[in-house]
């Protein structure tokens, strides 16, 4: 074997060794074959921001004070992106809730040197805060920009800390955080279901965003269960169904249904010169 071949073998061996050390969540309660996911119907979404505040309330997200917004370091595990089409008088606003896509082939997972982010058995892209060393490789690798770095320790002036959710870890300076699909609720549902000797029932667990959404634009369930409402919805609305940046092959666990625009043809000429902004 040439020296270069030896080197390649050594590298492969190291990767293999590292692969064996990837932590598993075998001991964590889970259901086999489940893939938690979400369907986002953009025809229902109004951009009202209810999901955004619900998420912040549930997940102990630090206050986004004005300076943080100016620095582009505000943390919103789910955010409503607003895009413009056309100009007055034919301008149209388009709203897209963007959260962690819990990708089946997540670019963030492969770049983490300490396996702080990994894929669990139920399809969740999990972030283990006390493993994270803050390289921010994952945030750079995420095409959806849904991973947020803590540049500061969060502060809640007393007695505002009374509101903090004891089920959710408060993240400290130097680590990455992101949407968990409210994993604490999923875990709680597992415990309840386990205590009662059954599986989690359809609809039994909802992340805070989906629970609050007035128009039911966000629906959450096991996408692998063909009987689940989101799975049926994605099937029934296949002509409107897409995933974000699907050409990257990330296999997102969030499925979007396009907004219906009965007058799209009116402004086709204007759209002909459409450009794309990052």
């Amino acid at each position, binding site marked *: 074997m040439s020296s270069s071949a030896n080197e390649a073998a050594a590298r492969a061996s190291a990767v293999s060794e590292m692969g064996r050390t990837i932590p598993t969540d075998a001991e964590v309660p889970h259901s086999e074959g489940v893939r938690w996911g979400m369907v986002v*119907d*953009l*025809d*229902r979404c*109004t*951009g*009202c*921001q*209810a999901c*955004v*505040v*619900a998420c*912040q*309330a549930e997940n102990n997200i630090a*206050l*986004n*004070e*004005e300076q943080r*917004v*100016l620095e*582009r370091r*505000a943390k919103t595990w789910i*955010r409503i*992106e*607003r*895009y*413009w*089409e056309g*100009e*007055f008088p034919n*301008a149209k*606003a*388009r*709203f897209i809730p963007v959260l962690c896509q819990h990708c089946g082939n997540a670019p963030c997972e492969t770049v983490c040197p300490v396996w702080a982010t990994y894929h669990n058995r139920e399809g969740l892209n999990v972030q283990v805060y006390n493993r994270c060393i803050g390289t921010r490789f994952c945030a750079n690798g995420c095409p959806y920009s849904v991973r947020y770095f803590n540049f500061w320790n969060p502060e809640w002036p*007393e*007695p*505002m*800390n*009374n*509101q*903090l*959710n*004891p089920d959710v870890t408060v993240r400290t300076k130097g680590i990455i955080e992101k949407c968990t699909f409210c994993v604490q609720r999923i875990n709680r549902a597992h415990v309840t279901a386990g205590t009662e000797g059954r599986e989690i029932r359809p609809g039994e667990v909802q992340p*805070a965003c989906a*629970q*609050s959404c*007035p*128009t039911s*634009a966000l629906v959450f369930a096991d996408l692998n269960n063909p009987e689940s409402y989101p799975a049926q919805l994605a099937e029934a609305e296949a002509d409107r169904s897409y995933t*974000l940046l*699907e050409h990257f092959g990330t296999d997102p666990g969030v499925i979007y249904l396009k*907004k*219906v625009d*009965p*007058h*799209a043809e009116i*402004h086709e000429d204007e759209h002909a010169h*459409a450009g794309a*902004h*990052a």
Partner: protein
Amino acid sequence: MSGIARRRFLIGSAALAGGATIVACAAPERESQVQSFVLQPELSLPGQELWFATTCAHSACGNSVVVRTIDGRAKKVEGNPAFPVNQGKLNVRSQAGVQSLYHPDRLSVPKRRRGLRGANEFEDLEWPAGLDLLSEKMSEARSVVVITGPMSGTRARIARDFATAFGGEHVVYETVESTVWRKTVQDGLGARRLPYLDIANAHSILSFGADFLSTWLSPTQYGVGYGEFRQGHGERGRLIQVEPRMSLTGANADSWVYVHPGQEGVLALSIAQVIAAEGLAPPDNWFGVVSEIGGLEALNAYAPDLVSERTGVPVERIQAIAREFASHQPGFAIAGGPALASTNGLDNGLAAMLLNHMVGSLGQPGGLLPNPDLRSTVTPPTEPTSFADLAGRGNTWLEGEPPDVAIVFEADPVYGMPEATRFADALGKIPFVVGIGTIMSETLGHADLVLPSTHAFEEWGDYVPDPAPRQHVVGLQQPVVTPSISGRSFGDILLTLWHDLRPNLAPPWDTMRDAVRANAAEVFRGGDFEERWVELLKNGGGWNDDWAPEFTRTPNWHINLLAEPAFSDNGVEYPLHLIPFEGVALGGGDETANPWLQATPDPISTATWTTWVEMNPTTAAALNVSRGDVVRIETAHGEFEAGVYISPAAAPGILGVPIGQGHSFGGRWREDRGSNVLASLAPLTVAGAGGLAWAATRARVRPTGDYRQLPTIEVLPNARNDVEEVIVQVTNGNGDHHK
């Protein structure tokens, strides 16, 4: 304690806490001590979550919530799935309730003014001293005025009857009024209560400025219906929004139509004319109605080619709207926002109501439906006082006939009334002003005595949603946590004073809890009330179907009454139109102290924490200003500063400015931030309804030469340091933005 019986004060405090003892200025004593597990505070089980159904009555959203509490602390607010208004869903403001509960700048002790009114110089008092001072002033008073925000149920009943007992009256102040819409449905439909919008079953909605997906009346209720409207039944509903400034509802519309400010009624009549001329609706629906209010001849004066220029809407567009609306029935037309905030706002609303008569969907599924009358034992939601009425009272006070005492609770007219009304000066004429609230406001800053009230999650109450969901509904409010400050509820303060000073006129209840129970016993009769009471608390209230009167078939209006809008200026010195708007999070400004809501991006601009002005690119170019430039917006009645936001949806000549900022009181996240657009408005009123014509002010813009980066969530291309560009086109038009 001389004026107030000490025993009664303690009774009130204990009832607030649901039986637990409270102490002043700190967490409840027992909760801060190491305790045996067998001696835990009531209902506090370590690590165990408890859920309480209650109503966020203070935010006037009409939503019932369930609050998750752990170890005696409120952790999360969810929608009450049983409640027929919000059906388990919530809006941003209800979600943020826990943050106002645990706000670090909450009022915690009574305060007495030391310096000049409005100077924010107060000294702390003990509760007994505060109540004694109020009692002393009330005992000497010959007349009193009670100024509150919108309220209903037992609390409203107590406020009204208390004011009457003390020779005064109860005034309800809304920063952004519903008075014109109330008058519209009274005159246009003969409706005594606000109608139910059957959005879920509608196939088309034609909205003249009503931002029902954001802040208008009951947005959570409407949001639930909207989801079904879009994707819940066979035919996808069509939404047409007509307005001078694109609202959140407009941003979601299938057709967004710009109309010149104040010309919404003309456009509505033009749509009606097309429906009549093209036979788009059966004549049986509309011929009689049209004949009674002016006839076809009057309607024909609004043919599209005659009004296109006046409205700013092309002839073909008017015809298309009429065809789309009439051919997708059932559906309905509504009016709100700037359409009703013009000097001819009532006419605009009534012209829109004519469309409902014409398409024949009134009282039908998918149309506007009447809400049940209220039972006599329930105090209906108190009718808001119109702007003209309140401004008139202010003038009376200025002229030397003020009441002796004003009690203000959760209303901020000093902030919301235009400066031209001199309302702060008028309030200053009242010898003694007491403010009750959870956090300082401009009006409380002008008070002589400030009393800290309990939060909605710490007190008893009930609530009658308005608009109702086609049912007779009473939402119940109960303490979900033990108060951590020594606040008292507004109702308990009034009851204490009442019993002490006018015992012969006082109601039989010592506390709000007693009053709410007694009211519930009257409303929900039958069976064992103790069992019923527990069931009501568990469900967050009670509701049942009830008889609803039909709408009238004859509007109280005439087409020839449609007036031209008047503005604050002839358009020469002040050439631009100022259109204030309520943001989805901050609304009229009462929730501005809440950092979650401050940081919630405005859906249109994605801006946070500040005041901006939406401006069309051509308007900005003419003024030689760019995004982030600070401009001074001047009206004939005031001026303020705002950062420029270039919006491709803004109409040329229209300045959209959010309401809510520009406070001098209210804590670290509210004070000295942005500008108060309301202060600079002209004090024009809506004819026939008395509401503030807040869309009737013209303005001019002067660049200041300053630049401040706008705190927006959207990230613009080439955004490097101070260099930002305008987004004008970002998608391919099919909604697949990232494909």
